[in-house]
């Protein structure tokens, strides 16, 4: 009797994102498919957040470690590119966790295309909730973040940018 897909999901939900440990890799939305073949055989499809995201290798290693601990000896992890990962896949609960951690979550969905035109909504400061904030840099400490500063509480903060 092999482990069910639900069981695998609950195992994977214990793995934190290597760079933003308050959310799990499941909440991030990078695990796209799971195929349990038998007791020892499993296949997963995983998609990168950003092409050059250095955390992908770490995520793969963490998944292998977790599944090995639960008896899988043959673990195949395939990287897929389509459909491309989008911040829309980050769950609402995870967005709230990001906010509490001090990272402003992606505010707009990619559907409205504002990420293309550059006319983004005002980003709320994750600490004092003020909308009076300014962009410091489109690029931050990791590929997925931009740097902002709050004009009211003056704290700088990371914004998880829409993609």
């Amino acid at each position, binding site marked *: 009797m092999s482990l069910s897909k639900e069981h695998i999901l609950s195992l994977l939900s214990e793995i934190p994102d290597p760079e933003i440990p308050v959310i799990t890799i499941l909440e991030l939305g990078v695990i796209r498919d799971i195929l349990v073949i038998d007791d020892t055989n499993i296949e997963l499809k995983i998609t990168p957040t950003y*092409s*050059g995201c250095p955390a992908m290798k770490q995520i793969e290693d963490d998944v292998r470690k977790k599944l090995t601990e639960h008896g899988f000896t043959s673990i195949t992890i395939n990287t897929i590119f389509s459909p491309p*990962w989008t911040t829309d896949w980050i769950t609402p609960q995870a967005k709230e966790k990001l906010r509490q951690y001090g990272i402003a979550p992606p505010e707009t969905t990619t559907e409205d295309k504002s*990420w293309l035109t550059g006319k983004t909504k005002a980003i709320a400061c994750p600490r004092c909730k003020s909308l009076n904030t300014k962009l410091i840099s489109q690029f931050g*400490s990791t590929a997925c973040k931009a740097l902002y500063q709050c004009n009211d509480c003056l704290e700088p903060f990371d914004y998880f940018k829409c993609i």
Partner: protein
Amino acid sequence: MNIQEALFKYTLRLGDTNLILGQRLSEWTGHGPFLEEDLALTNIALDIIGTANSLLEYAASIENKGRTADDLAFRRNDRQYYNAQLTELPNGDYARTIVRQALIDCFDLYFYQELAKSKDETLAGIANKSIREVTYHLRHTSSWVERFGDGTEDSHNKAQTALNELWQYTGELFEMNDVDKVLINEGIAVDLNSVKQKWEKHISELLQKSTLVIPENVFMQTGSRNGIHTEHLAFILAEMQALPRMYPDAKW
């Protein structure tokens, strides 16, 4: 030339262009004019190297001769590289790096939009992924082109000098050979003539806004489609390949 051979060469060319550009840009890491710009260029370089990795892994799988993406990156000589010459040129000052990057970001945006419609699912997937990243890159670099061009006399002159020197390398971006012809017939490759029109329109609008002028009567450099490069490629490869060449069995 059969389709598999053409697809390998096409994917290799795209991979090489990204790899060499990413390697060049990453030379700015720790040397940016200020912290935020340092982060920005490093992030852009990282995206581009990520794309190169995806493309070279795919190229290795198409070739199917046991070579890996790392073998392709680290065990070829300059004459076996097919990156556009524009990407291998030294960074120069910040204006030059930014002008080159804007020219390429703009090309990439329209190129990937077309490649995303390719019948080859992997290339289409990589293109679709990259469109989103390149959109951010172009926004960043074109905002700097505007500030340099329409800024002080000094910044304007530096940006205009960069444009005058780099323009001769832009013709190559749109060159097509047998590889392209075979794959365009299959609905896999991008017809670069359509990209050229959009690129020219976008770039001329950007430059006009930035009070910069496209140099006239420029002789266009050529050669990279046949593995012919400027003197700069061999040096960048020497640095990039030093460790794997010295320790061929080294593993991460």
